[in-house]
């Protein structure tokens, strides 16, 4: 069943990064799913079949790169594109990028605006929707 809005899986072991990225993306009209480590992200990716993955590089259990490699190997998530967040000055070897679907690398401290721009390049823009909170 096609989704109304593109679903983005955001993975980072730092909660504040998740909050900032989720907020920026939901305000821009995307659906966001979060995970706090690579393994949780892997399971959620298989289960929910997101349209895009945004992952941190440095995480416990499974690094962002390992996560991307595993997802590329799995039939269901073979084509899932990814954006990676890394520490400033860190660069990924080109052959590593070739083994994965990493479409872009953003270094921290990243600009949320830039993350959104990259997402829009990959997924196309969605009309921003008024956020409806279920809790209030």
């Amino acid at each position: 069943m096609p989704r109304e809005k593109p679903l983005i899986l955001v993975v980072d072991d730092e909660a504040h990064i998740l909050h900032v990225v989720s907020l920026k993306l939901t305000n821009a009209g995307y659906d966001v799913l979060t995970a706090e480590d690579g393994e949780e992200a892997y399971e959620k990716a298989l289960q929910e079949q997101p349209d895009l993955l945004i992952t941190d590089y440095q995480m416990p259990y499974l690094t962002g790169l390992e996560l991307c490699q595993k997802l590329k190997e799995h039939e269901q998530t073979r084509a899932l594109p990814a954006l990676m967040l890394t520490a400033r000055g860190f660069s990924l070897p080109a052959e590593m990028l070739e083994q994965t679907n990493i479409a872009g690398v953003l270094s921290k401290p990243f600009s949320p605006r830039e993350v959104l721009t990259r997402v829009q390049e990959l997924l196309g823009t969605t009309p921003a929707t008024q956020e409806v909170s279920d809790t209030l």
Partner: protein
Amino acid sequence: MKDALAQSAIPAVGNRVKQRIEALGAALVSVEPTGAVSLLSNPRWIEPVLMRLPAWPAAVRGKLEALAQPQGSAVEIWPGLWLTMLPGQRKRRLDNAHPCGFPAALFLSAAFLQSEEFQLACSVEKLDADAVRAQAQNWVLAGAAEVQRLSAMFVWMQQDCVEADRRVGELHTLSQQLGESYEELSLLYKLSNSMTLDRPPAHFLTESCLELQQVLGLKWMALQLVENEPTLNELAGQVFLAGNLPGDTHLLKRIGAILMQRQTPGQPPLVVDDTQTLHIPYLPRLAGQLIVVALVREDKQLGILFGGDKIEGGHISSVDSKLCNSLAASLSMFLENLMLFEDMSAMFLGTLHALTASIDAKDRYTHGHSERVAMLARQLGTVAGLDAHDIDRVYLSGLVHDIGKIGVPEAVLCKPGKLTEQEYTIIRTHPEIGAGILQDIRPMQDLVPGVFYHHERWDGLGYPHGLQGENIPLYGRIICIADSFDAMISTRTYRQALSLERVLGEIKRCAGKQFDPHLVDLFLQLDFQPFVAMVQQQNVNLPLPQPPVDPPPPAAPASDTESQA
């Protein structure tokens, strides 16, 4: 009406609370100050029956005071029918004529099923009272004590949810602020990294405008620099623009000049919501909202940073203004560095020129020699493929190559005629003296090789060390050719200037002997016409050289000529 009420009231009580209230057998209702009660829960069969009880408003009105008690205990409206007001803010509706209600939980106890009101409602709805009683047993509470316990639980639950919602709201706000801080940090980080003096400053200034325009989401952002600031060089009076300006840049520049006068140094950023109020002609064509920040160096205005109108509507916020201010401070610092750098290089070059000119002035036949050698060395360096930095250094090396002559007595330097062996020895010390002078001046240390080795020869017969071939540093080899060329093409105390053909022939002849043959090939490709014209201009005012007491050998080879130069 009821639906509208329900919609407006629901946000005051979370869906979570509503679901829990329903699961525990109660219903969520909205109570208005008039006493009117409307149902917010999904109606089960019994609730519409209840809502039809005729005396609702009057009965509730009579109990309003008890209902509003802060301790939140349940109030019995009719026998066995209870209401508990839930804490939480009442949502205001847009038109005050229809205030919306307070949320409340409605529940029933066993006494209700025995009451006259129940009998009446069942008969109005044409329902069998016994059947209704039998079904209601599952969720009707036993008595007042049970009602109060559940009521207290609802109130706590609602309080917790209100608190949780408040925290979610706070988290939302904090995330928003954190996102803005990330944006700011990332911008400042990016710009401070690109704030280097080895790129054209205009690139950095344009990039800064573009970044800021995008981060702030403004339609356009401009940086205008003051006109009358010589140390800004070609940047003075320039405008750097990012985004889409709804007008031409001439207009922008004129308006920028007016804003620059108004925005005096030290003022906080000026944020204007309606540019009409500034009374600057045509400004409202460019922007409705405006932000202006001055760029300042020690109380002196360097320029202004200004931008207009949010792309997605909304106001220019205090966060925007803060960010503009930080960036303006960074830009001011950048410009200040640029100006200091300009001051320093002007002073450095000025000092070098003054120094070398004073050496050349010891002998009017060598007037302008250092300058010309420097120019030739730069041209040769360029065709030899040196990078911009090396070309600059080889030029400076050429400028100071003879600085050691300051230690050579004028009697020797300006002697018309052949030098004695002893005088040669004295004159041959000038590269060493020059290197000695320069090596203690840190910014000139890399000029030392050019100065020290400019009299070395490719065949190893030069001085001071007799180095050979490529062992002679490149700057030395370049200056050697430039120096010999200028010496031969100029009139000297001991002979007339030689013709260009003669000089070039001599240079060619000495390739591989005195000069680096590869550099000679490159040198011969240069255009000497402007240079020769310059030398001739120089030579016009010189008296013919004195006939030497002991004439030098005619058509002296370059090497001999040079040992005296």
